[in-house]
């Protein structure tokens, strides 16, 4: 779902960078506050960035027979919070551009916006909403992870459609085209990532319930159940 280096016109590249900057800035402000209150959070968030980077190197079995990798957007948002995920995502995307030539420096702003802002905020909102309507923990996690994935790819499609509107059908036709291209791989991947996140959270609940409570992901009663 990364937009590759140099693909966006210069105005769009700058525009998306400006749009992403306040979120990253606010995320840094929140991290600074968290670090002041709990100094050990600084190390946790730094290692979390490495964790997210390593996740992107894992091969995910896909329904189409091909392989892709988990984005970790939903899992990261649930474990570390959506505001912290903006700077963490920015670091991961920068590392992916430099170390793997995946994404790019000129498209960093656009990629941060779709993958480190829209995805995590959507995941956190869906998770909270699902918890508030008393959905099962596993279902809440599945919905948060897979819908965040889908929203990320919809945002990328919109970014590309805005940059390259169809000569005849305009933005709408272009958006439909890019969404259709991505849907072929992203729809099954979103479902698989949702299932994977449920397996991860179930394992964490089973073996590391105390850590989840300390990360404020679960309430004590959830774990007892």
């Amino acid at each position, binding site marked *: 779902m990364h937009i590759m280096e140099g693909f966006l016109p210069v105005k769009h590249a700058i525009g998306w960078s400006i749009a992403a900057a306040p979120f990253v800035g606010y995320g840094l402000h929140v991290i600074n506050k968290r670090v002041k209150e709990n100094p050990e959070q600084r190390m946790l968030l730094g*290692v979390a960035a490495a964790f997210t980077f390593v996740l992107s190197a*894992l091969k995910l079995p896909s329904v189409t027979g091909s392989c892709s990798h988990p984005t970790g957007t939903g899992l990261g948002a649930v474990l570390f919070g959506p505001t912290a995920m903006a700077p963490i995502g920015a670091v991961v995307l920068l590392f992916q*551009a430099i170390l793997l030539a995946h994404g790019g420096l000129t498209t960093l702003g656009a990629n941060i916006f779709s993958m480190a802002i829209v995805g995590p905020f959507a995941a956190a909102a869906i998770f909270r909403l699902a918890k508030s309507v008393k959905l099962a923990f596993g279902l809440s996690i599945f919905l948060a992870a897979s819908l965040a994935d889908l929203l990320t790819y919809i945002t990328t499609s919109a970014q590309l459609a805005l940059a390259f509107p169809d000569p005849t059908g305009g933005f709408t036709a272009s958006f439909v085209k890019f969404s259709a291209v991505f849907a072929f791989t992203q729809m099954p991947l979103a479902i698989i990532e949702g299932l994977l996140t449920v397996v991860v959270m179930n*394992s964490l609940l089973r073996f*590391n319930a105390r850590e989840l409570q300390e990360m404020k992901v679960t309430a004590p009663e959830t774990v007892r159940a």
Partner: protein
Amino acid sequence: MLTELSAYTNRWRRVTPTAKGLFSLCGMIAAFAAGSSRTALLIALMLTAAAIMGAGVPPMRYLRVAAPALLFLVTSALSLLVSLDFGHNYATGVSLHLAGPEMTRIAHVCCRSLACLTALLFLALTTPLPDIISLLRLCKLPDTLLDLMTLCYRTLFVLSEVVHETLTAQSARLGYASVAISLRSLGVLIANLSVQVWQRSQALHLAAVARNNDGALLFLPPDFPHATRSISRAAISGILLIALAVTLP
């Protein structure tokens, strides 16, 4: 990682990252300033030559690093080539056709993207990440963000090793024999890694506190000989690259 291998072993390893960053930036500006596909291709060629002939990056390694991005560029180009037509109303159905008149513009976008990619590869294959982080520190990026980068860089190889060892152990127990089993094994692996993240960060925090660390993770900046000369050369080469992109049709 191939990029890291190149970054630490190329001829320009000891050249100041400011010079390499400046040249890469100029390459990107030149790519965007190029008025035609041919000019963008020429910029891409010059940046590739700088990495291979100048910095001494082996051509095969360069290709191996660039290959996934090039494949991605081809698929992106294909998606631009196809155009959707809804007709006069949406009920009549959608027709697919090749965006023939747009061909020149699409070619230009792809060549610009290729030129930008070569500028990125120039920086990535000649400059180790810690040098790039020290360059970003010079650019006055917030300390918190730089700390995140430093910690991320220092732990990602540790976590990669853990992942590799766990994958080997799981594979030896047929943990990836089918799609369903793979999904479960991968889930358990990520869960285990999540906990390790938490535990390793605690250990790192204790180690830092034991050494009276009370703020940003600062390191002595490495010393690069002839920095001024390198920066001047990079600036001149970069300006020439931009001038070439602007003047050529």
